């Protein structure tokens, strides 16, 4: 139990490499004391509070392609690491094809903060509470990562290892998140429960995504991801299976919500107890599925 001794952000060296290669090399050479910097909305708070003590912050914005925000009709959406959330959520194609991502961005803090905060930063920070992570997971996101050995892909499904922990190694820089084009007409919602109307971190977050799926028994495909109720952002495959195999009825959503509740493993903290979180996962999953169905059916 120690108290941060100094009341302000500690000193660090700001590194601005010219190329990704240079950046990866620097980060790898200074493993444990250097960290890639995007918007900084988490890094600076963690450093000020004394949790992180990096000597170097390596600014990877504005490097090769990290400023790109691009939609391709077949390949889908590429969001560069340096693209802020306001830019993402106001892009027409995002609103049209990835409405759940736009909704998740809108739930993040305030306009001012979102001019700094990035989706890729949200992913790499790997907080179980990350608001945009669920949408990226459900849209089958794949991170483009530049390491000392060049580029590789990291699918989000296997990316998260624990609170703040990912498969990234020293020298790795996530340069973009790629989201394939979702099935036509797919839609969903992100519901965030906080202690106040908007600005708090989530007590529970539920992302739901649905589409018509002629190949499944139910004729639908539903996916659900949960925030703040497990050590990692949590997709619940059981919900997908259940709702693919069973008729879509209000009762089926209740059962699916129960499966989501079963899958989560929350903790007690200042924002809410594990008991409350479990209860809310059930309520909110059901609600998110109902909203998703309404939107699929054009009722909203």
């Amino acid at each position, binding site marked *: 139990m120690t108290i941060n001794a100094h009341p302000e952000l500690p000193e660090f060296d700001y590194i601005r490499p010219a190329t990704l290669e240079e950046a990866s090399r620097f980060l790898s050479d200074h493993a444990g004391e250097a960290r890639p910097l995007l918007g900084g909305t988490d890094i600076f708070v963690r450093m000020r509070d004394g949790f992180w003590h990096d000597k170097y912050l390596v600014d990877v914005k504005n490097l090769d392609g990290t400023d790109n925000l691009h939609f391709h009709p077949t390949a889908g959406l590429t969001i560069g690491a340096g693209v802020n959330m306001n830019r993402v959520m106001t892009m027409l194609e995002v609103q049209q094809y990835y409405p759940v991502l736009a909704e998740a961005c809108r739930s993040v803090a305030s306009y001012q903060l979102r001019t700094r905060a990035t989706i890729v930063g949200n992913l790499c920070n790997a907080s179980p509470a990350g608001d945009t992570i669920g949408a990226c997971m459900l849209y089958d996101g794949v991170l483009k990562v530049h390491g000392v050995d060049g580029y590789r892909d990291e699918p989000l499904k296997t990316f998260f290892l624990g609170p703040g922990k990912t498969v990234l190694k020293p020298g790795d820089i996530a340069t973009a998140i790629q989201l394939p084009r979702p099935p036509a007409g797919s839609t969903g919602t992100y519901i965030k429960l906080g202690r106040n109307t908007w600005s*708090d971190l989530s007590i529970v977050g539920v992302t739901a995504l649905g589409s018509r799926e002629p190949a499944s028994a139910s004729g639908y495909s539903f996916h659900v991801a949960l925030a703040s109720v497990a050590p990692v952002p949590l997709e619940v495959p059981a919900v997908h299976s259940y709702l693919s195999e069973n008729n879509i009825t209000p009762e089926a959503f209740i059962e699916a919500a129960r499966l989501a509740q079963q899958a989560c493993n929350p903790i007690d903290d200042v924002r809410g107890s594990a*008991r409350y979180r479990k209860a809310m996962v059930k309520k909110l999953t059901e609600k998110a599925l109902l909203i998703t169905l309404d939107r699929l059916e054009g009722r909203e």
Partner: protein
Amino acid sequence: MPPETITIGKSEARKDGWTKASGQALYVGDIPIKHVCIGAVLRSPHHHARILAIDPSPAQMIPGVVAVITAKDIPGEKIHGPLVQDQPVLAMDIVRHMGEPIALVVTEDKTAAEKALAAIQVEYEPLPAVFDAEKALQPGAPQVHPGGNLLCEYDVSDGDLQEGFSQAEVILEETFQVPRISPAYLEAESSLAYFDEDGTLTVVVSSQKPFDDRHHIAMTCGLQDEQVRVKSAVVGGAFGGKEDSELHILAGLAAWITKRPVRFLNNRWESFLAHPKRHPATLHYKLGAKADGTLIALEALVHMDTGAYASYGPAVGGLLTEMVQGAYHIPNLRVLTRVVYTNSPYSGAMRGFGSPQAHFATESMLDILASRLAMDPLELRRKNILQPEDHFFTRVQVGDTARSLPLILAHADQARQRLRQLPAAPGKQSGVGFALSLQSMGLGHRVPDDSTNRLEWSPEGRLIVYLGSPELGQGMQTAVEQIAAETLGIPYQIVDTIDVDSRISPNGGVTCASRMTYLLGNSVILAAHKLTEETLNYAARTLNLPRAKLEYRLGQVILPDGRQMPVSEFCGRAAEDGIVLGASATFSFPYPAERTPEHLPIGMPHMMHAFGANVVRVEVDPELGTVEVKDMVAIHDVGRVINRAGVEGQVEGGAVMAMGYALYEDVCLKENQRWVDSFTEYLIPTARDIPENIEVILLELPELSGPFGVKGIAEMGLVPVAPAIANAVFEAVGVRARELPITPEKIALSLVEG
């Protein structure tokens, strides 16, 4: 309708508004000063521990370190405290709360400060700690101070409790709990100490009481008061939290020892841990009533956690005791309040000063009784409100101020009916609740409660007000300028105010207790009359006319032939003669012997009161437990409005602050035994949480002793809001909140589990 005025009642623009809005105002952190050193504080990581050894020497070796200061280096008094001398300037043998100062470092740059704090070696022996007032009084509890954990106790009663309860047809017992909250001002505590052009130790403070700070700084440095100069900086909010001198003492001490300019700026976590909070409390109520709702008896047992040091705890305990009665006639009433030391961060003064705690319990209790009797909560109150001829249980006569209560109830009833018509959003349930409030003004009987201020004509004929107490951002300066302008019949625009500077300002005491507009206003009116007299005397001498032939009207001296000469002409002439046309006056809060009960402890009773109410409409999501405050109507009797925009701002600000108390805020211990000490976890209302429209209804039933009829407004806008929200939540979903904050979790789980 009040009579036609020059400026009273008008929403004159604040003169500090533009510099603040445009970022030009100089707060302590902004004041440019050459070669200023960084002052930083080594704080206890333990809740309670014995200090076995402190070794500053490794820190002293670090380049850029000017000095490391521990208790041993203090030349004067090593203990301070505003009411009780119990707080070490720097810890000596024991730390009693997390964040307690142990050593200071004075350095030339930030890096050196950081390294120095980490290098100081402190050896601790952790001790068991206690964080709950009731547990702290049990045998075997860890002892926070040698004299025991009970700091003080008030036992005030009137009537015959036993007899009262024997007549009661309904008896209810309830326990309420309110949290520790932070004033959460924009500007955390800050202090800048240096030596002025004459070599005098000068401390620029963000404070409610610069003159008291000066005294504590002088005591600690082993100086006389007049050897220290204090100046008030622009203050970024205070709310009671800046009545403690702690950081100013440290700044003064650091500069005095090093002979260097030093600036201390608390970070937010330091503000959370080491500056006063609102007292958490447990209030146990037993209420007896007739079946028709007539209140017969109330017994209240209150435990307040004052934390590791007394601060203003004893005074808050006293006022909380007085406020339990609320706006009601309760013939048999006893309040027993215990103020208890624990190892929590210390609590002290905060806007409302005990009244919000008492009102949450009293006003919730009234609604519980109404529900039990199947009565309308408003009718229940109408039956029991105080009348002018009634006495509070302190035996102070309520007087004319009670005439506001029927009007307040009528407004509340209208607002309630209107808000009940509004539909809830789909999936939400709407509820309308309300609560009445009582708030006193002034510091209480036998506590020095004066204000001294000075007026001067400048050589060019502007009026200068030398404030004796600091403006905190609340707008007192504007109100005082308007009162001065109205009294002298001159435009508000030609009145200037000089902030507190102990070298030139009179000592006007602490800015607190909803007393400033009343007290300062009266003092300024007295000074204005003296100034007029002095001006006419000077005019008579200059013009060689008898004084009795001259008159003063609206900034003009009226000559015997009816001709008018502007005061500015005499001001210029006086300046050439080396004469300052100025006058000071002191006004003391009246405690008239024939009306002031003498049987109570020091600080009791308070003699002046005002009533108000808050009506709120909430929408609750019955599944998630979330509460949104959608509409709010605040009704307050302020005696007389001096600046309408200012008063409305005070009421709205108080209401919003109280929303945080009701719904979000709690400085509590986390699982890891650390306090909630940042805005990441400690939520305060944002612009998106507050209702779009807060309607403010101001009643003006004049206080005869007040300037133009003024009562007070600073605190009471906050007082009725939390119970009004709790009562609205009950109407919406049937959940009775006995504990603040009313989090979504508490509501949802109680709906699920009953």
